[in-house]
């Protein structure tokens, strides 16, 4: 079972306590954007076999949204971090690099 540490309440929450919220750090497009931008924003998702960044909610707990860095091919969790950021923090990136040198995800590496 997947266990994620909620960065707000500090609980190691099991999968049943959590609600998956999909890809993290989406850039939102508003009025005036092109069809392609809207299409990608609405339907295109990163689908990596490897390092992935996601939004999760501690639904049956403190109720807060947070971010998680995971590997989709091993279910390994690299770390969780605040929802109040537009990109993965440095310590999370370093934690991933320690185990997966050379990883990339969207524009991050």
């Amino acid at each position, binding site marked *: *079972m*997947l266990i994620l540490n909620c960065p707000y309440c500090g609980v190691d929450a*099991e*999968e*049943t306590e959590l*609600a*998956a919220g999909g890809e993290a750090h989406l850039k939102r497009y508003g009025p005036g954007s092109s*069809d*392609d931008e809207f*299409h990608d924003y*609405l*339907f*295109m*998702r990163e*689908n*990596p*076999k490897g390092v*992935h960044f*996601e939004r999760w909610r501690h639904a049956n707990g403190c109720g807060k949204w947070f971010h998680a860095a*995971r590997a*989709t*091919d*091993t*279910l390994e969790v690299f770390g969780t971090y605040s929802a109040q950021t537009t990109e993965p923090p440095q310590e999370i990136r370093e934690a991933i690099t320690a185990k997966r040198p050379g990883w990339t995800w969207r524009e991050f590496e």
Partner: protein
Amino acid sequence: MKHYSAFAVAREALRYHTGWERAWRSPEPKKKYDVIIVGAGGHGLATAYYLGKNYGIQNVAVIEKGWLGGGNTGRNTTIIRSNYLQDPSAALYEKARSLYEDLSQDLNYNIMFSPRGVIMLAQTQHEIRGYQRTAHANALQGVKTEWITPERVKELVPIINLDGPRYPVLGGLWQERGGTARHDAVAWGYARACSAMGMDIIQQCEVTGVRQENGRVVGVDTTKGAIDCDKLGIVVAGHSGQLAEMAGFRLPLEAVALQALVSEPIKPCMDVVVMANTVHGYMSQSDKGEMVIGGGTDAYNNFTQRGSFHHIEETVRALVETFPMISRLKMLRQWGGIVDMTGDRSPILSKTPLGGCFINAGWGTGGFKAIPGSGWGMAQLMATGHSPLTEAFTMDRFKEGRFIDESVAAGVAH
């Protein structure tokens, strides 16, 4: 290829079964093929088969990373039905279901198609309205389904408990000619027929790159070397995104785990397929007597081909209420497959931005039932550039707002 028949069984019985030959050859790849299909699952093999049978294109290779039929083709719960809401889906799935009817004769391979009937239970008021709507839609589409009462459900499924406190059975959508087939046999039958036409099925051969010149595909790089081709079909389910990346485009897909389990074998107790979409569970009894149970998908991206235990618990807990007798069953095996989900829960059968490259993906949780129709349409698309079966399922439908929205129509279990 030696013809399978009752006479052949008798002949071999007299010589201690020493005369059977391998069902398909395992050749080394040639330098060049007219068409390469990546993925020797049901959909890939069916595509190759109908390319040869309907269009005479027999210089074909089917390349497989693992072993033939070892992905979702060998992991699903073998349900066949075509009671979909939207016209393009109903046309495609009904084509598949009707091809299943005499596929054993067509392939000369017993795929054990069993049109035992499929019930989708209505357990909420919302589902009653939804399934009645689907029954009306099916009548217009020429797909034979009917809305049945709880009493009729009980007649068809004596082991069911209609009066569950949380999930009472309020009726059902009944498709009499739905049912099951032996999933492995579908892949094996197509593989044998393809091999007999001279096609090469190359297993243990992973595609590592898609070679292109001037915007057209010219071949693939594999772990067994480079192979040239004029046309390429990508039919790889969970790994469609990885193949698309090699070919230089993106797909609106996410891969998640879907799991299933089987019980110990018991005496015959249920001779129809029952799906309960409100509680994310469905069940049928295999010819061996095992109760075959499927559940919902995990909610997050996953490539590990195993599911999470709490989903099994949820599925079984709900089914135990509707089928109290299964509470005494021991479960034998549990497994997972990686399904590729689109935003509207309908597949993608499409040309791609790369010339000569075609994609067949996004079957999500319901690909097995569609294998013959998918192969039929995909072969037509690849051979002629257009197929009425697949024309609604292009990959640009999201941008154009032409969703084939079955995520509402089918509840969840597809």
